[in-house]
């Protein structure tokens, strides 16, 4: 059904259509509309889930862990301080191999208080064992949320998935999007290690060092297997519903001499910058990274690279730029832009390309 709504509403509708059994909810700007919409669905009877209004984000992930342990589908949503407050439980849920799905409205961390878009919240959770996808339109927020359940629950993966959408820029923008009837695109959950009263076992018991590492190695196996599962899921989604997604999205890259790389809404707006640069005779292209974990490196051979990070790792640099450099050997012009919702337009992105100096870092808007 073609409809019109915000990024938050699209996530909530995808969750409704995925029919989870348990939803844990705690409000935080700019995600709150998701848990409000879910409460409306449950109250109106259009969603049969148990809605647990927890007292903190630490507990929202804990409640999802408890529910998912029994083998049912679960969902929660958070942002910023809420996400880092539940950090411990992100490790616990991934380590317990529970296919929990969560939406994160990317937002800056204090102090000072700032509710604008920034990726530092989710990027700082990159080593928890969660898959992370970054979306750029309201439609993609809906589609990625539906697909997240299938990817997380796949027995080759069994790792939780975080859908990241830029706070306000995407959570609060109103756009056209189409909902679908998932049907058997989303098979029922079949968690192989779900709690079984008839076959009791000890979950997460004391595990000595000569065993612990084998479980971490298995997590990495699940993470690596997820690449094929993501591709297969996205291909099946395209077949059934007609909308195509890839591990990363390329725009006018074929003959490009310089490519701009970013995640989230900047990854969409930079297409406009590419068009402007092309009109000026500069062979520019763009790559929008969708999956940050697993990290999939595009072929950047022979291209100049401009990476825009809406995040920063102190003492290191822009995280996306650093990881691309480490994995591909490219020497990116690393731009730090859009922190805390800082305004960045396609004109600014055009300017980044014009002033590029490979191997250097540029903080947009900062005059030293």
């Amino acid at each position, binding site marked *: 059904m073609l409809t*019109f709504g915000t990024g938050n509403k699209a996530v909530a509708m995808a969750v409704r259509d995925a029919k989870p059994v348990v939803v844990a909810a705690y409000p935080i700007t*700019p995600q709150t509309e998701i848990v409000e919409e879910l409460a409306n669905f449950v109250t109106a009877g259009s969603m049969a889930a148990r809605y647990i209004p927890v007292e903190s984000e630490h507990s929202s992930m804990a409640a999802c862990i408890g529910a998912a342990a029994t083998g049912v589908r679960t969902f929660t949503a958070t942002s910023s301080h809420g996400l880092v407050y539940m950090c411990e439980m992100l490790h616990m849920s991934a380590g317990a191999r529970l296919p929990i799905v969560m939406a994160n409205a990317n937002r800056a961390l204090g102090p000072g208080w700032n*509710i604008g878009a920034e990726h530092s919240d989710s990027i700082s959770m990159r080593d928890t064992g969660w898959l992370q996808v970054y979306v750029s339109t309201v439609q993609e927020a809906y589609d990625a949320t539906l697909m997240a359940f299938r990817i997380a629950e796949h027995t080759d993966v069994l790792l939780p998935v975080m859908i990241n959408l*830029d706070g*306000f*820029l*995407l959570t*609060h*923008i*109103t*756009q*056209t999007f189409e909902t679908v009837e998932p049907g058997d695109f989303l098979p029922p959950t079949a968690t192989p290690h779900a709690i079984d009263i008839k076959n009791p076992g000890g979950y997460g018991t004391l595990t000595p060092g000569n065993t612990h590492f084998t479980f971490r190695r298995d997590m990495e196996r699940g993470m690596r297997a997820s690449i094929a599962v993501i591709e297969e899921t996205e291909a099946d989604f395209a077949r059934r519903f007609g909308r195509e997604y890839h591990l990363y999205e390329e725009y006018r890259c074929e003959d490009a001499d310089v490519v701009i790389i970013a995640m989230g*809404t*900047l990854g*969409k*707006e930079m*297409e*406009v910058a590419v068009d402007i640069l092309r009109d000026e005779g500069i062979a520019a292209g763009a790559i929008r990274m969708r999956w940050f974990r697993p990290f999939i490196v595009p072929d950047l051979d022979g291209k100049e690279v401009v990476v825009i990070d809406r995040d920063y790792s102190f003492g290191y640099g822009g995280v996306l730029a650093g990881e691309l450099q480490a994995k591909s050997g490219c020497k990116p012009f690393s731009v730090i832009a859009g922190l805390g919702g800082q*305004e*960045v*337009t*396609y004109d600014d992105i055009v300017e980044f390309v014009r002033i590029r100096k490979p191997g250097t870092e540029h903080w947009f808007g900062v005059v030293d």
Partner: protein
Amino acid sequence: MYEIRLHSRGGQGGVTAAKLIAYAAFLDGKYATATPLYGAERRGAPVVSFIRIDDEPIRIYSQIRNPDLVIVLDESIMQVVDVLHGIKPDGTVLINSQIGTEVEGHSTYPVDLTGIALSLDLVISGSPILNTPLIGAIAKMGLISRESAKTVISETFRDERNVEAALRAYEELEI
């Protein structure tokens, strides 16, 4: 692409108005986005919303710097905010005004949205409802169709006086 910047005060319904205008454009078969620019949410504070309407998918998320149309829901804002900032040379201005306020150098359309709301007793928590008559004025300017305007209002508001308010604004606005 047609770009609209809407200035209002917190509590006046500016954010909802932006969504409704974009929704009506969507019903007309166009691509449209509505984006509120949030600071701390508080009543009475100046609020800005952006609406983009185009025949192609819209890939821009940043703020509108050069609007084709500036809407001012509360003319007292003009004393504290430069509402004309960056407006295109041929850009137009729609002002909710009871005294027919005009701005120099741009085509101005003053319309008494507050008066229309009060005449129909369309008041919530002491504030007149401005967004539904605004939809009527936008339809009169030809940015959205009369039919879509009516549909979004009746889908969103149960009170039929909202449709009447839009009709009155449609009739009162002189193009």
